[in-house]
């Protein structure tokens, strides 16, 4: 199976071929890597790269990957090549919109923007309090605040839609 990985700005081609029980040849930009990969604990994988042993904690939803190895966090996207082709053909439906959602249950302390206001990438838009800490949430894109779904003082669940930037 073929995938496209995006690390920073750069795309890499990734191929996965199963060659035995839990053994794979993974090709990254033409270079082959033989690995033995076992899921050992929840999101944790034991990887033998050749004979070198790694413990790898893999997170992320959909294309977004977040991988922890020895305390280092690797963030990238990975998408099935066929799916990527389909997405491209399907047009720009998802492009240019970014929902700011609450990453944890908490209380909306302050709205930092109003509907219709222009915001920049990484600009703080809302403050949510959880576990005695105030956390400023940021916009992932540059755009205009299309809609605000919550009021100050409101208690929100994890994953609750807070506001939409377009």
């Amino acid at each position, binding site marked *: 199976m073929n995938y496209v*990985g995006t690390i920073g700005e750069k795309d890499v081609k990734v191929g996965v071929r199963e060659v035995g029980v839990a053994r794979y040849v*993974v090709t*990254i930009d033409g270079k082959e890597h033989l690995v033995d*990969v076992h899921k050992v604990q*929840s999101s944790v994988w034991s990887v033998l*790269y050749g004979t070198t042993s790694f413990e790898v904690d*893999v997170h992320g939803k959909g294309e977004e990957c977040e991988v922890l190895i020895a305390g280092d966090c690797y963030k*990238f996207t990975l998408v099935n090549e066929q799916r990527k082709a389909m997405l491209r053909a399907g047009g720009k439906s998802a492009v240019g919109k970014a929902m700011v959602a609450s990453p944890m249950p908490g209380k909306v302390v302050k709205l930092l923007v109003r509907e219709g206001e222009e915001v920049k990438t990484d600009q703080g838009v809302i403050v949510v309090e*959880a576990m*005695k800490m105030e956390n400023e949430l940021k916009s992932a894109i540059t755009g205009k605040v299309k809609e605000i779904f919550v009021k100050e003082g409101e208690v929100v669940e994890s994953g609750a839609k807070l506001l939409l930037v377009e």
Partner: protein
Amino acid sequence: MFKKILIANRGEIAVRVERACREMGIRSVAVFSEVDRHALHVRCADEAHLIGPPTASESYLVIDKIIDVARKSGAEAIHPGYGFLAENPGFAERCEKEKIKLIGPSAYAMRTMGSKTLARKTVQAAGVPVVPGTVDAISSEEEVFRVAKEIGFPVMLKATAGGGGKGLRLVREEGELRSSLRMAKSEAKSAFGDDSVYIEKYIEQPRHVEIQILGDRHGNYVHLFERECSIQRRHQKVIEESPSVIVTPGMRAAMGKVAIEAARVVKYEGAGTCEFLVDKDRNFFFLEMNTRLQVEHPVTEMVTGVDIVKEQIRIAAGEELSIRQEDVRQIGHAIECRVYAEDPDRNFFPCPGLITSLRTPGGPGVRDDSGVFEGFEIPIYYDPIISKLVAWGKDRAEAIARMKRALTEYVITGVKTTIPFHIRVMNNRHFIKGDFDTDFIDKVFFKEEGERTLEHGDVAVITAAVRMYLDERVRTMAQNPAEGTSPVSMWKYSTRPGMRRHG
């Protein structure tokens, strides 16, 4: 000795006190809120009592409820842990009135040391060095100018009612003083409803070093040397160690003596900590006294072999200190990392949630003071601390190597934790050299981290790709079982002994 002790706390510190109780043959009484029925501190106690709703102000902070449980259960003493009611003189007074022994100092000592200005006046009178500045709020602008010039720039303006960095202004030169004063006053007014400020010499590149003391009601005092707590993130300690690399033997003896003097003036009873700021010329200044057990007490226990919680209990029961100053030795080096349910790769966002799997580190010289277990859901209502991992080594280099080893063994899934952050600090060259101050994490470490290149990108991509491949295969098989079989035939599995099928 007490037969029964109530622990007015939750989480890892409640478990820590329960462990001491069990080892001493004392029955422990836990209290818990509605969300904590499954919590470890309930499971590790001999008795447990429900005290109300999740919000601390309706349960763990309600003095009447705690006293009521103590009465009902027949507990003779209360250990407050840290946080919650631990430094509340009102609670201490109530215990005194109810004739229930609070394991800690008197309400008087707590009140004196709890007020920054009162503590400063009190210890200064006992000859303890404090940061130069005024003790009381300054009334007029002229006086601010006079004092600032007298102690020399840079100076710090601080709100008398302060806390949390509000009403705090650094002034580097005289020209900035007037406008800074105006801002500090207006900030203090809006944050605390009180615009009075005082002025202090600003210590540049300070290190935070504290002395652990123990005192009994018979007038015996010992200090258990220092802890270095300069590794802080936004003024919160995250890594502590003992000994400190900057403290010389002479300085250690002097600081210890001063800490005991400070304790003696308030007839301090129990375990306490004097916090000092140390400037780059190794001058030390009293900052404040914490009138409770500290989060970071295990590092001292590891290098001295003294069980501080047991000493607290013995002292509260009226016994004399079991150790004299000349018996206390500082052996080897210990480091503590506070493991929080926070995501270090998303600006330390709190991550409450279910711990889906857990592997605790072990082996030589490793101690894990934890408040969780696999299957426990970390509630959103309290501090997101999971555990304190402590490593001991014969010297600092071994302690760092051991801590790094233990951190990489520590696996917690389901919630993000600060373990990765701690590994990165253990690898940082400045940390390894002992070259840091209280601003190190916020000003130096994160910048250096941003510039670092990562080593195992290939392994990361490979594992993520294999995971995606397997997820897709499972999906395909679910949709179309006939076509989705594995390319490796079942026949081959049985002919390959020793190969386990991956689940």
